[in-house]
């Protein structure tokens, strides 16, 4: 086994260990973790059997297998980034709703407190 191949296998294993560890500690949710696990498996297969990459490169008509890898990695990262922005947008929408609900609850609470004579922040006027 070539030195670079050993290095690649080790790196893949490290990435996989990291992913599993993150899931185990609940830093990473399973639904987001699956895609990373699959990536690790792909990396591992590619580094154990070098023929896979050359085969895929020939299949797509790319001369150098490394270029195929770069293309794949680039495409993969773009997709990941896009899906992350989708997740962020969805989360901020939820956050907005929660903020609005919270402010409304606080308002109602102050109002009720005032009505039953518990006091509250001064000047709060109920609707006429």
């Amino acid at each position, binding site marked *: 086994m070539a030195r670079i191949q050993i290095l690649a296998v080790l790196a893949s294993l490290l990435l996989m260990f990291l992913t599993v560890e993150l899931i185990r500690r609940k830093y990473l949710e399973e639904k987001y973790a699956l895609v990373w696990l699959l990536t690790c498996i792909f990396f591992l297969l590619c580094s154990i059997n070098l023929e896979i990459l050359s085969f895929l490169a020939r299949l797509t008509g790319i001369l150098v297998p490394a270029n195929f890898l770069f293309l794949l990695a680039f495409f993969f990262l773009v997709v990941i980034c896009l899906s992350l922005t989708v997740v962020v947008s969805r989360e901020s929408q939820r*956050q*907005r709703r929660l*903020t*609005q609900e*919270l*402010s*409304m609850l*606080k*308002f109602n609470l102050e109002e009720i407190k005032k009505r039953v004579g518990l006091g509250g*922040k*001064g*000047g*709060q*006027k*109920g*609707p*006429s």
Partner: protein
Amino acid sequence: MDKILVIIPVYNETKSIGGVVRDIRASLPGADVLVVNDGSTDDTSGEARQSGAMVLDLPCNMGLGVAVQSGLIFAQDRGYRFVARMDGDGQHRPTELRALLAPLEKGEADMVVGSRFLKAVSAPSASLRAGPGGPIKKQEGLTASARLNEYRPSLARRIGIGLFSGLLSILLGTRVTDPNSGLHAMNHKSISFFAKEYPPDYPEVEVRVMAHKAGLVVREIPSTMLHRTGGVSSITSLNSVYIVLEMLTSTIVGMFRRVER
């Protein structure tokens, strides 16, 4: 009297908010005033309470649209019939609220927008058909001091506003003179529509698109804007290009979006 709610979204307007609330209460005594405090870091909330407004405190700064929407949800929850939205920096004149609400009360429109660029032809409820060009006639009843303080947008802003008013006029098929105006009034139909969904950042332009897609009848009436009495604008020269591009995207994408009526 019909239940009217005046919504004022604010962020760090300690200096001006008290005066604005008091002015509104003086010129529209029957209305309730709701200040939506968008996570101010100063005492805007306390200042507003002191002047007799109801205050909705958002725990962090969420953006203008989110603040306005909070007010609309509040109005819907409590069954307000009409809602007016004003700025908390003293740039809008509370005396114009009556004219703003009039078309709603008469059932002539679902939403009314105060336009800085529409000429006062005869009645204050001059319609959209006011002709283009010509010097902007000062509105009747503007006091001398108010006239002195009248706000004139900078050249860059006028270009931006012109761009969007042209674009919207083409897209919506009606003349839109002031797409960036934040002086709005809505009836129940508009309130329940916009309480469900309201654009979070720089909402004014997109609101016009959404109203059009939802089939709401929108009318512009002439209004004057004064210089701000305190605080700073949220739009700086640095981020203005990005904002314009963002608004452009939301306008064009908005035309293709499906709107739940």
